[in-house]
């Protein structure tokens, strides 16, 4: 474990050195990333000029909703910074045969393939997310109880674990298909469902969609659970949400491991 941690830190340091070599580019990437996020925040502010709540009696008024958005920013920043760049590189590695070099290393292939390239500029949104969270929480009528502060980091980790598992399974599809640009787009569009409170998915079409995105592909648990823990009154059913997130994260990690190993077993080298 210590060996893996030291390799992880070594890769992180190398990527940070690389980013700092092109400081202007790094700064520009941070700015563009924050610009995109600011545009979305402007849209939400516009929405709240027409309504005081997202969904009737859902409790997602302006401040809790912005705490929700902030939680999403933090989780996505972690995933985009630490896992997504490696997964994006995998497509080319499969096509060019670069994957062979990884498979002969005396390390776990999944670890090396999913955690060797980092994009620190993506963390900029995470820092803005923390600022937005503080802004929202100090304006809320009720401060979160101490137990919420304890469970919040845990449920954030569960959200990250679910998204990581999804990325790994899509990476496994890359190994099987050779080219899957659309599947990465699929990841982007699928995570789009996690951007809003689960309560908005109601009615004859919304309820089945909500069930699908909670129990089959647990994408709705990613942001909803930590945001509910920190921004909604802590009640008995919150424990149920937390338990669901922990189980979903564990199950997703396990399933992604199985799928990835099965895909590797089917891999045929593309190199000469």
């Amino acid at each position, binding site marked *: 474990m210590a060996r893996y941690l030291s390799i992880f830190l070594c890769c992180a340091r190398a990527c940070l050195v690389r980013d700092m070599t092109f400081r202007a580019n790094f700064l*520009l990437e941070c700015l*563009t990333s924050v*610009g*995109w996020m600011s*545009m979305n925040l*402007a*849209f939400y502010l*516009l*929405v709240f*000029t*027409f*309504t*005081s*709540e*997202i*969904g*009737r009696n*859902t409790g997602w008024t302006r401040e809790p909703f912005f705490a929700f958005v902030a939680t999403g920013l933090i989780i996505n920043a972690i995933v985009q910074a630490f896992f997504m760049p490696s997964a994006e590189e995998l497509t080319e590695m499969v096509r060019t045969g670069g994957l062979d070099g990884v498979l002969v290393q005396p390390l776990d292939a999944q670890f090396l393939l999913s955690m060797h390239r980092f994009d620190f500029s993506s963390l900029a949104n995470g820092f803005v997310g923390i600022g937005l969270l503080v802004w929202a929480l100090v304006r809320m009528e009720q401060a979160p109880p101490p137990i919420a502060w304890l469970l919040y980091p845990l449920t954030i980790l569960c959200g990250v674990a679910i998204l990581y598992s999804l990325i790994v399974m899509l990476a496994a599809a890359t190994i099987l298909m050779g*080219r*899957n*640009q*659309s*599947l990465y*787009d*699929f990841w982007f*569009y*699928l995570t*789009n*469902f996690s*951007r*809003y409170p689960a*309560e*908005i*998915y*109601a*009615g004859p079409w*919304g309820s089945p*969609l909500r069930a699908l995105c909670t129990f089959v592909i647990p994408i709705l648990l990613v942001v909803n659970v930590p945001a509910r823990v920190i921004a909604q009154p802590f009640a008995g059913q919150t424990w149920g949400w937390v338990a669901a997130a922990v189980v979903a994260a564990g199950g997703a990690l396990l399933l992604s491991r199985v799928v990835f190993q099965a895909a590797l077993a089917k891999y045929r080298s593309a190199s000469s």
Partner: protein
Amino acid sequence: MMALLPPSDLQASAREPGPLQAWMNSWRIWWTMLVICLEERLVYRGDFILGTLMRFLPIVTQVFLWTAVFGATSRGDIAGYSRNDIVAYYLLTMVTRAFSSMPGLASGIARSVRDGSVKKYLVQPVDYIGYLLAARIAHKLVYYAVATLPFAAVFFFCRSYFPPLPDASTLAAFGLSLVLSFFLGFFLEATLGMLGFWFLEVSSIVFAYMLVQYLLSGHMFPLDMLAGIPSGIPGVSLASLVHWLPFEYTAYLPAAVWLGKIKGADLVWSLVIEAGWVVVMAVACRIAWRRGTRRYSAFGG
């Protein structure tokens, strides 16, 4: 008389095509470029179909979001849009974006400048902007061929959100605004790409453009919602300010035309302005190409 001319001039005179022949030659070259680009596009058709279908997914979340917003407020409409209007608006902007979005155009031009591949268009009798236009038309034709079915299915499924079919003149105006939005989107992005002659790397400029475009084109929400928001200039709302820019013609206008939000003289005036923007951007693109190629230098094979 002809016999008095030197033999080389005689041959040149015999080869000189007439205006009709020249036009035919030019048309043949353009047609060949279009066919090649069509074949290129169809190589990864499976990936293409999957990508097209998935573009509808964000609309689903928007439908649920606005349904929740309307569910929480007692207002019957927001900025003149009922809940059904907003859903129809988002679906119609998908159609508009299918015409006006030009993925990879600006970055492709800048890349061809950077890696030197643009020089082949300088020595061949092929107009680079014409080639890019043919390639983009081919891309769009394939896209429409593939996307018509999913689009038709989604629109049929969501037909209850739409108002009754507009009259023939509105439909014609809608069609014209779509065609113009294609040309406007093309020349806007091509001009951005031409900046590659000066900056080499334009990805940051393109990203900034995409941000502004996404926000101010009406892709994100109907621009009428900005009507009550001050711009900082006394007496001028943000919506009025946005109307002076070309972006709204690449998403908002055709959708608003279909939904009957712009009618009569306003509609005619909007189409005239859109056509004006197309001309302005086409000229800007041509000027950027001429000036850019004048300062461009390359060597090697």
